[in-house]
């Protein structure tokens, strides 16, 4: 047994693992503060973290050649999972995002964060000698398929993240400036169309609420206002106990999931946020160092894409909680309560860890 752990740890980047543990400890602490250390959420999250860490270990020893080889099947299975959700998913608050497995609800769109980049990156070698434009168009198409399915759940936030992961790969893979400009232009042209035909009223409302949350303080603006109050009242060192906290009195709902950053800000203040950012920065820095130093182009690309998704989701969540961004249901990576998201990120980091360990074996 001892040998098994030694085996596992020898394959793990120590720095990365320590920062990861600190972050997960943060998560537990914040969830405990948000909903109580004796609540079922806290114990479930504890269980998720343990399970997640075991998954992390197991994935770390995975042979990635196998992953790349079956990437098409993995992609098709992921899409099937999305379709399955569309037909048999559990509807919560008007959107079908979850597949109910009894003990565990899986948010199927999360899987795509993981599998879409694997599939795209595995295609890089295949398209090595084809025209760049063709590659990019194929990649774009492959990315749009899950995007549209997720958009119809509806879950604009997750859909955009999936689409973005595809776009990041295309960009990192050397998309020319000309095409970037064409892309931006096309986006601007399509924007009014999307506003009218694709966005639902509540989504438009959320975007409008961003501009003036007080115009509609009860409906869409409520979260934005209460969240700003929670964060703002935290001050430099966090709110002292003489003041009642926003989340204790239930003014700010969903504190253990999407709005957990508000709990951090309220309880630990600006200084707490800085420390939190610092830990995340060190963690991300380690990820970047590992990613950049991988030996194969496709591995680097995959690792960098995962890092990008991670940072992007992290920033979008905080921007959303601080009222800089419309409220899209994107949880704070590694911190928010929930199994699906946690497992996906831990698998991502495990894959990066594995690529790192195996980099000497594989080189371009």
């Amino acid at each position, binding site marked *: 047994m001892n040998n098994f752990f030694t085996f596992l740890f020898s394959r793990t980047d120590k720095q990365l693992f320590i920062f990861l543990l600190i972050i997960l400890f943060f998560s537990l602490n914040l969830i405990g503060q948000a909903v109580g250390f004796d609540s079922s959420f806290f114990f479930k999250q504890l269980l998720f973290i343990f399970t997640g860490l075991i998954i992390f270990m197991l994935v770390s020893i995975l042979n990635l050649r196998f992953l790349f080889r079956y990437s098409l099947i993995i992609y098709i299975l992921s899409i099937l999972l999305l379709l399955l959700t569309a037909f048999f998913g559990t509807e919560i608050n008007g959107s079908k995002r979850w597949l109910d497995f009894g003990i565990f609800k899986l948010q199927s769109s999360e899987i795509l964060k993981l599998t879409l980049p694997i599939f795209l990156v595995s295609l890089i070698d295949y398209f090595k000698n084809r025209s760049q434009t063709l590659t990019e168009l194929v990649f774009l198409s492959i990315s749009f398929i899950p995007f549209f399915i997720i958009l119809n759940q509806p879950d604009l936030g997750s859909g955009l993240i999936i689409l973005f992961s595809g776009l990041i790969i295309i960009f990192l893979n050397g998309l020319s400036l000309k095409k970037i400009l064409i892309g931006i232009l096309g986006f601007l042209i399509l924007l009014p169309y999307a506003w009218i035909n694709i966005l639902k009223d509540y989504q438009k409302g959320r975007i409008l609420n961003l501009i003036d949350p007080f115009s509609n303080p009860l409906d869409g603006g409520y979260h934005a206002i*209460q969240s700003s109050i929670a*964060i703002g*009242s*935290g001050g430099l060192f966090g709110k002292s106990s003489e003041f009642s906290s926003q989340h204790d*009195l239930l003014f700010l709902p969903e504190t253990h999931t999407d709005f957990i950053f508000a709990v951090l800000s309220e309880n630990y203040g*600006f200084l707490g946020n800085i420390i939190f950012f610092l830990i995340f920065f060190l963690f991300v820095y380690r990820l970047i160092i590992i990613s950049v130093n991988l030996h194969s182009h496709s591995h680097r690309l995959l690792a960098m894409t995962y890092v990008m998704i991670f940072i992007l989701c992290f920033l979008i969540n905080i921007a959303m909680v601080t009222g800089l961004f419309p409220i899209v249901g994107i949880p704070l990576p590694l911190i928010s309560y929930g199994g699906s998201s946690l497992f996906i990120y831990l698998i991502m980091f495990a894959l990066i860890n594995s690529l790192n360990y195996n980099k000497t074996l594989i080189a371009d």
Partner: protein
Amino acid sequence: MLNSRFILVRRFNILLAILSLFLLLIAIRLFWLQIYKNDFYLERSKSNSERIEPIKSLRGLIFDRNDNILAENILTYNLEVDIENKSTEDLNNIIGELSTILSISEHERDLFFKMRSERKFLREIPLKININNEELTFFVSKKFLFPDVTIKEDFLRSYPHGIENAHLIGFINRISKKDLEKIENDPEMLDAYFGMTHIGKQGIENSFENDLRGKSGFKKIRVNAKNSFIAEIENKKALDGQDLILSIDLDLQRKSHELLKNYKGSLIMTDISNSEVLAYQSNPSFDPNLFVNGISFAEWDKLNLDPDKPMLDRVTNAVYPPGSTIKPFLSIAGLENNIINEDYSISDPGFYKLPKTKKIFMDWKKEGHGNVNIVKAIAESCDVYFYDLAYRLGIEKMSDGLRKFSFGQKTGINLPSEKKGILPSLEWKLKHHKKKWNAYETINTSIGQGDFLSSPAQLVHGLNILLNNKPMPPLSLIKDKFSDVSLGVKKITDEKYIEIVKRGMQEVTSSNGTFRSIANNNNNKIAGKTGTAQVFSLKNQAYDENNIADHLKDHSLFIGYAPYDNPQVSIAVIIENGGHGSTVAAPIAKKMLDFYFETTK
């Protein structure tokens, strides 16, 4: 391949740079929220969870002098709806749902929405006042269906003898927009009225509002987002209103109401010694209980459009020509100025010719009163005697003399909108008509006609001053307010003049007087003065009581007191369009005084 790595890392760095900018933006935002605007958000977070709930003060009770209750508070259960953050549509839905289990009238609905639009700071608004036990139990069983509807204990103002005391006690009503403006301009008032729904609108309820209301308190509590109680932060108790014990006697109120029942008019009876009002009655009357929670339009129209004006307080808010009731007061002025004396007499042919003119003034008695001295002039109400007196006295001395008896001034009774009437004088004429005084107007004034107007309250107050021969405190509605008024006040005039006039008023009820009908039935020694006031001057036409429209008939007046050898109570009665003073007003006064002595002895 090195090239592809170079491109990749550069691209990666570009993305990192963009995201760093994003991070910088977030950091600035956090600094803005947590450092720069920290105070603002701390305050918001406090107010988020703090709620101030009013504690209403209990309105003071009103009793008569014998501890009979005239205004009380009845415990009721009201249905109140939490209106916070609800649109009109939401509220209509709630009310619609409610009306499937309880009856909610259109009127109740209107009042609810009216209050909602007017009272910005109220969170819960009563929808149905005073629900009965059956409705209460039924609602409680269905309460779970109505999270925003609560049953609140409240006190409903009630006037058990409403109609008998309507003008005196007045009523409270829901605070109107206009009241609210007044309240909101005064921070102290705003505190006192916090959470209050009613305000005194008329009568004593209005004029003693500050004493009766008290001061509301508040409870500051901490609640969570679901509005559940978490903790109490501060509790300031309400200061309940003071009870009032009136000088009024409920039995007299009932009697006077009964006596006036078939007339339009009013009656006021006072304790001569201390200006306390014992009876205060105006008819037609109304039920003040209708107003307490907002009168319906139909009821309001009925009262407001009634030509008999039931809402009008005819004791202090209406003024009439005092007619011959003015003569005793005028006599004092004549005696003081040596125009007449006890022995001075004239011969009355039934008319008076104004010197230096051809104007003839008739006496009410065509054949005249013959030889008339002051006592006989008062007893028989000889017009010619007073025409002559007035002419020789002149308007200035006349109005100066009458002013001492409070004519043309408010009596100071603590009731809203008392009218001061008109005491004609040179100055008054110049000011209001921009004209010089005519001699014939002096003649008209001498019999309480012309521009002369006074209220029944003024007449009784004047009579009290005369009988006490000293300035009297304002008519008082509160028991024992002026118990030591008799001490050390300068006399108004020589006591002997008062005695002469009193003798005249005593003669009024003798077999020669205008109220001789009670000459043989005057056990309570009533003295007084009748009056008949012209409403309309008939030109070249004989006044025929049987042949004239009701509203043009003379007003019938009587002022009086008893017993004449030791005056205790005074009274003034006016019956609009009642005809002669001696035939309507005086008998009512007599019955009233008899009742007083019968019940208090």
